[in-house]
């Protein structure tokens, strides 16, 4: 059987599945023992499958978060929102397709939607720079934040980026400044901000649109200060330690729930969101709507203060 994308931890399951497929090609009537063997192998495979996907390690989840078939921002837009009015451009340099920005409706509620936008195939990935924004992307996002603030529209953001693009032009056009200004702006917008981590949450490039009043994360999404691969290179001085780094960095939903950075982790179907996208759209939509409804009752000033206090409380240190 040929598979487009195999993750390391899935290999044992797939190897057995291939073996089973081979056995099924044989003539069962000529060998009555074969039928029993096939049946037992199939049961083993199912057991192994459940065991594998029920005991995913952080590094396995990182691979799932990057799966090419994983539902992306545009899929959530299609599934959860109606009457979408996209906005384009930063009014200064360009329209960065690695960031989606637009107005939309979710179950009758008007909102402003932001999201990192990876492509679904090579062509769209090249156009969208594989979901890694340039400064103009963050400046477009800031335009939408100001619009949302002006018209009182809650902001919903979807995180799915390996990071802000580390290129020459990005540096020269002020990648750092764009991210910093976005952080400053987002910290003070007078509307509820609901953040959903759907895939990769790569460092500052994710954070620029990635904190708010309610933090929701999918089970196999990650959010991290650095990619496990780069951490492995720098801190372990050994490129093969990414798996260990992924655990140490505490970067998946359950870890971040414990650290108080994330409020809610949305479970995925066995095998990951890409095996049955519709099974995650419902719960994600419900979590967003629940958050919007809870936050809409809070006085604007109080909400901004709460957001500040929440940020203010993050950090661990000892005081003499």
């Amino acid at each position, binding site marked *: 059987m040929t598979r487009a994308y195999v993750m390391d931890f899935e290999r044992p399951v797939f190897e057995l599945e291939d073996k089973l497929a081979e056995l099924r090609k044989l003539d069962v009537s000529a060998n009555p023992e074969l039928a029993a063997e096939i049946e037992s192998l199939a049961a083993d495979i199912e057991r192994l499958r459940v065991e594998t996907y029920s005991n995913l390690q952080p590094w396995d989840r990182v691979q799932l978060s990057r799966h090419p078939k994983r539902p992306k921002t545009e899929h959530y837009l299609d599934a959860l929102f109606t009457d979408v009015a996209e906005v384009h451009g930063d009014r200064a340099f360009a329209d960065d397709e690695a960031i989606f920005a637009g107005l939309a409706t979710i179950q009758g509620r008007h909102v402003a939607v932001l999201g990192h936008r990876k492509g679904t195939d090579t062509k769209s990935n090249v156009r969208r720079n594989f979901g890694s924004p340039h400064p103009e992307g963050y400046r477009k996002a800031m335009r939408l934040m100001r619009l949302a603030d002006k018209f009182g529209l809650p902001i919903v953001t979807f995180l799915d980026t390996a990071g*802000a*693009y*580390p*290129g*020459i032009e*990005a*540096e*020269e*056009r*002020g*990648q*750092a*400044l764009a*991210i*910093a*200004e976005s*952080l*400053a*702006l*987002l*910290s*003070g917008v007078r509307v509820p901000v609901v953040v959903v981590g759907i895939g990769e949450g790569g*460092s*500052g490039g994710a*954070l620029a649109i990635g*904190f708010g009043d309610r933090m929701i994360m999918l089970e196999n999404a990650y*959010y*991290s*200060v*650095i990619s496990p691969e*780069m*951490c492995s290179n*720098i*801190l*372990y*001085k*050994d490129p093969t*330690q990414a798996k260990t*780094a992924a655990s*140490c*960095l*505490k*970067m998946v939903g359950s870890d*971040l729930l414990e*650290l108080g*950075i994330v409020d809610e982790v949305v479970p995925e179907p066995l095998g990951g969101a890409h095996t049955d996208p519709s099974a995650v759209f419902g719960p994600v939509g419900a979590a967003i709507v629940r958050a919007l409804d809870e936050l809409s009752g809070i006085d604007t000033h109080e909400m901004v203060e709460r*957001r*500040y206090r929440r*940020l*203010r409380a*993050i*950090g*661990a*240190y*000892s*005081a*003499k």
Partner: protein
Amino acid sequence: MPLADWFSARESRRYTRIDDTPQVSSSAEVADGVWVKCDSCKHTLYEGELADNLWVCRHCGRHFDITAPQRVELLTDEGSFAEIDTDIAPCDPLGFVAAKPYETSLEGAREKSGLTEAVVTGRATIGGVPVVFGAMDFRFIGASMGSVVGEKITRAFELATAQRLPIVLTTASGGARMQEGMLSLMQMAKTSAAAQRHSDAGLAYICVLTNPTYGGVTASFAVLADVLVAEPGARIGFAGPLLVEQTIRQKLPKGFQTAESMLQHGMIDEVVSRGELKDRIELLLGYLSPRPARSGERS
């Protein structure tokens, strides 16, 4: 540490010592002993003379990296600096172990720098003007920003806001501190939020970007200053040069991510040499005093 101790600590570092305690150098390229080779022009410099020249090479103008206590001495009025938040210290919230445990790195950094963390903050006056002042120190785990750096910077902004004071910071950093994971990343949002509140209160913030300032520090509170100056030759950016080179798979242009190139691209206001920094900050502070509240206007 009281200011007097810094002076004596600096004094003790100036000459070769006969004991075997580790020599503290202000930069990797500073060799042990009395003579220092300039990495740019290869001239051999007498360390005492180099220190007198504010650690700037008198042949080529190269600015050597200096420490946070040296920044305090350089930029604040003599005897005016009173350190704040000396009581908070880093811990190891994730139990992080890589090539070496985080605790070991912290211990090493403390020994090497004599500091408790990568930033020193306090009240001071600059040209007689009361300010909140902070300086980062690259010797402490690359002046990476973890919980304590984020907290101290945030508190500095909050103190300045509450006391209606301008804030002056000098930055140097490799970025967010990996060993504290997401707690470090979130310090970017926390410090930016505090900087924004200080700005909303109509108060001045001047930031001096020094070599090197990268990653999560550049992309948060550092560049949010009202006026951004940098020391000559300082490397400043978001992504490190190695990562950029690996990503684009080509050689980087000459001068990429230097203070001079940042100026050319409109990203900073001025490149100011070390000897002129204090005067420049005094000049700027003179212009950037809060507007007086007029009658009929909300304060």
